[in-house]
């Protein structure tokens, strides 16, 4: 195989790593709460910008990752407790609230950060050239993939091996019965929303180190994450894995061979899946 193709596949995998972290948070929250958090893209951007400032101030990238993730988790917690909970039960008002939040956050980012696109500085020690099977590729991108796999495994563990996960999965199927059984579903809601926000913040730092962060970029990111979860099936973790792998490759190859249509191309599998199987590849009927 041509070495160029190997590079493209690796780029696609890096892209997929970011898409998965982004999409898994959204799909988790949707599966349980039936809320599409349309401020997910804004969360990503804010997380990325916070990470950028931390790297700039301390030069410590791992710290930036933690700071970006945690600050968004806190923001998500406050938003869920103070606002979302007031309109619980009406899925449209809930979604509209997240739209309003997205507008406010993306305008806030304009106040505090540059209007020009920026990228997080990754320190040299995290980015050594790594040669595997004769192909040299930036080591940091392997780190990105590793973090993403780690996140996937921990999500799987939380969902299928812990009590919280069991309650979440039961809540997806029948939330009335779950609360009748004595589980405090409100706490579960908050927990899931916070995890979802945390993932968006982490994705922001990860993505901001590989791609660019720019004002207004939140809508593009939101669209990516929506495509991931529509294609994979809403509420399905496996779906998020598979669809981000597919989309990552499409984005990488599209950029190389059809730059005029690279963004356009990622919608093609979504449109096909919607026409044939509206609930997505691994989704169940809602």
């Amino acid at each position, binding site marked *: 195989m041509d070495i160029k193709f190997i590079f493209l596949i690796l780029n696609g995998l890096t892209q997929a790593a970011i898409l998965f972290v982004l999409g898994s948070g959204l799909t988790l929250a949707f599966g349980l709460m*039936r*809320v*599409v958090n349309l401020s997910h893209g804004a969360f990503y951007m804010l997380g990325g910008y916070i990470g950028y400032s931390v790297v700039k101030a301390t030069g410590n990238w791992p710290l930036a990752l933690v700071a970006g993730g945690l600050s968004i988790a806190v923001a998500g917690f406050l938003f869920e407790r103070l*606002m979302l909970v*007031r*309109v619980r*039960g*009406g*899925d*449209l*008002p809930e*979604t*509209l*609230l997240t*739209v*309003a*939040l*997205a*507008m*406010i956050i*993306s*305008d*806030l980012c304009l*106040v505090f950060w540059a209007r020009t696109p920026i990228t997080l500085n990754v320190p040299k020690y995290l980015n050594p050239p790594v040669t595997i099977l004769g192909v040299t590729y930036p080591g940091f991108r392997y780190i990105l993939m590793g973090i993403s796999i780690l996140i996937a495994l921990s999500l799987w563990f939380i969902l299928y091996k812990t009590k919280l996960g069991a309650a979440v999965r039961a809540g997806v*199927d*029948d*939330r*009335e019965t779950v609360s009748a059984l004595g589980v405090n579903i409100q706490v579960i809601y908050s927990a899931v929303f916070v995890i979802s926000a945390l993932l968006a913040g982490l994705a922001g730092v990860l993505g901001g180190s590989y791609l660019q962060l720019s004002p*207004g970029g939140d*809508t593009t990111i*939101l*669209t990516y994450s*929506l*495509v991931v979860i*529509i294609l994979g099936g*809403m509420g399905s973790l496996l779906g998020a894995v598979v669809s981000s792998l597919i989309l990552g490759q499409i984005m990488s190859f599209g950029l190389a061979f059809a*730059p*005029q*249509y*690279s*963004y*356009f191309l990622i*919608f093609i599998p*979504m*449109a096909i899946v*919607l*026409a044939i199987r*509206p609930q997505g590849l691994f989704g169940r*009927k*809602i």
Partner: protein
Amino acid sequence: MNLAKKSPFYIGLIIILLVLMPLFAGKYTVTTFIRIIYFGFLSMSMGYLIGQGGLISLTQTAFFGLAGYVIGLMNIDHGIIFPWPDLTAFVVVFAIALFFGLIAMKTEKIVFMMITLAFGQIVWAFATQNTSIMHGWSGIRGIRPYVLYGVNFNDTTNFYWAALTLFLLGLFLLWRIVNSHFGLILNGIRENPRRMAALGYPVYWIKLVAFLISSMYATMGGVLACYNTGIIMPTTLQLSRSIWVLLTVILGGSTYFWGPVVGVVTAISLDVFISSATERYNMVIGILFLVIVLFSPTGILGMIDAVRKGQKLKFITKIFSTEKRKTD
């Protein structure tokens, strides 16, 4: 809703004032009113779907922008003149809306909203990245209105009168559609699609027709907008614009016929006043959006209604369908 029945006198007065407005107002005011009219069309197209059908579609702005692109491409790039670009705009948008609608109508509620959002982004992506046909970021410039039958529509006042005429016709037509038999069936579907399906109504096709009607309103707005601004760019159809239009609908009151119009007038007036004072228009609009959803989900008109009926403003009232969320 019954504003028109109760007070034809006021409606007539408002129309006369609107027609006479350019005679005593400055050019800036007239241009602002033209903006209100074309965004009014766009807002009506979204408001009709939300209020009458319970469908939140975020593709409307893409239809709005596509209309401009068709006119720009045919007129500027190929020199084809009125009425062909304008008619083609309606045909092209109709075809695309039909294609999108056939897919999107399989879903409902939040999923429908997400899918229409993605459709809007498809069009945006194509317009942004494609340089060979759509001219990429720079878009198409220099679209001008014509001199038709001796009337020069390059003149702001003439353009305003033409736009106003179309707007009033559009409102009247929509009023008839909303109050027709078809409109009632659509309301039934908004309240309970399953029951309507059980009664034998083709729910899927009725929603599709409503979607097509709304796309035509968005197109009308887009046609007027591109002639008025003279340029068509990807920013015309970006997501933040769709969200702004959604805001105008919710702001005015999505369940009211006049809601979208009231919302657009309010949002544009705010734009005029705020933009001169601060750059943070989006912040103000976002906070306003938040407050409306939290405290007065039926919008400005809902608030007025409540005050008129002497009710206390409820903290939270239900918007949209009253059907409770169910777990299947």
